[in-house]
């Protein structure tokens, strides 16, 4: 979509609603290992869906900031979604550690795309005390019996590759990717559920 031709009716809002809700749930709601285990209905006093719509509204009020060259509209709103959560977290009274969000909010424009820009925010949700080396070693062990699953795992964790990039890079079919990805999800869920990864306080 051209930035210049941004009009309300040109946006596929159904895809945005489903896409951002999916991102939110994938990262937060159904994962006990992510953001603690208390996110089933409310998150800091609001439903997850409220944050999704807050992010959509924030985008709409600042739509001129969206740059299609840096990623899809859904990537951009996902990025706003996570920033809202981080910001909300940082201003909580119970947060005694630091309220400095400059680490995450500086130099956004310098990053090449929204997928990359969002990474510090995603990382910020994980506690430093967790032994990620051990988790990654277990994951590597878990995926090394199936070539396609291993390739998807390496493409993602090593290079942050997207679906189409992995398909192209490793010469697999879409169906092989989708099946492999499902198996990878099962492995990730099995391994990470053993760890009680607590949320970090900003």
């Amino acid at each position: 979509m051209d930035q210049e031709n941004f009009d309300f009716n040109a946006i596929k809002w159904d895809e945005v609603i489903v896409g951002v809700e999916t991102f939110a749930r994938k990262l937060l709601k159904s994962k006990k290992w992510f953001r603690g285990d208390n996110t089933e209905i409310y998150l800091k006093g609001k439903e997850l869906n409220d944050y999704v719509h807050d992010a959509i509204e924030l985008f709409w009020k600042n739509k001129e900031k969206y740059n299609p060259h840096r990623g899809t509209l859904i990537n951009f709103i996902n990025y706003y979604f996570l920033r809202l959560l981080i910001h909300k977290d940082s201003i909580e009274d119970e947060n005694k550690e630091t309220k400095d969000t400059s680490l995450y909010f500086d130099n956004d424009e310098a990053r090449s795309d929204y997928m990359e820009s969002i990474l510090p925010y995603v990382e910020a949700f994980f506690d430093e005390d967790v032994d990620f080396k051990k988790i990654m070693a277990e994951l590597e062990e878990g995926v090394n019996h199936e070539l396609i699953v291993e390739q998807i795992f390496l493409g993602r964790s090593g290079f942050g590759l997207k679906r189409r990039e992995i398909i192209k890079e490793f010469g697999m079919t879409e169906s092989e990717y989708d099946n492999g990805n499902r198996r990878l999800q099962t492995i990730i869920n099995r391994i990470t559920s053993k760890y009680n990864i607590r949320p970090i306080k900003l």
Partner: protein
Amino acid sequence: MSQLSKHKSEFAKLINTDAQDTSNDFTSAKEFLTQEGVNVDRLISDGLKRIKKMQLQVEAEKNRSAMLSLDKYVDRAKEMARQLLQSPTFSFLDYLKGEQVVASFSNLQKLTDEEKLSIIEKHITLKLQKEAGESNGF
């Protein structure tokens, strides 16, 4: 990057790419939400209502601030017009000529002071708006 940060970063990339990929693929995203027990049709229909309402609120807000901004110019224009008319050297006809305001001379002769004031106020209001628009890059 320390080893700890490296592994944490790899883990974050793994989770992020999966969440982003699925979220950008409408079919996969709907499948995922359905598996999560979400009524996707309802999610979309409720979401569209919220977005429509949001758009109307944003538009209303925009109109309200445009109105507030217009009020600001009108108040300033009134004050400037009053000061102009009070000036002993002020000539209405010279003013119109200097500002290149197009008007019919025969009609101008019949104008009351109140009507002259109103013309000057409107002219200054438009001028202030134009100047503000230009300075905002519109």
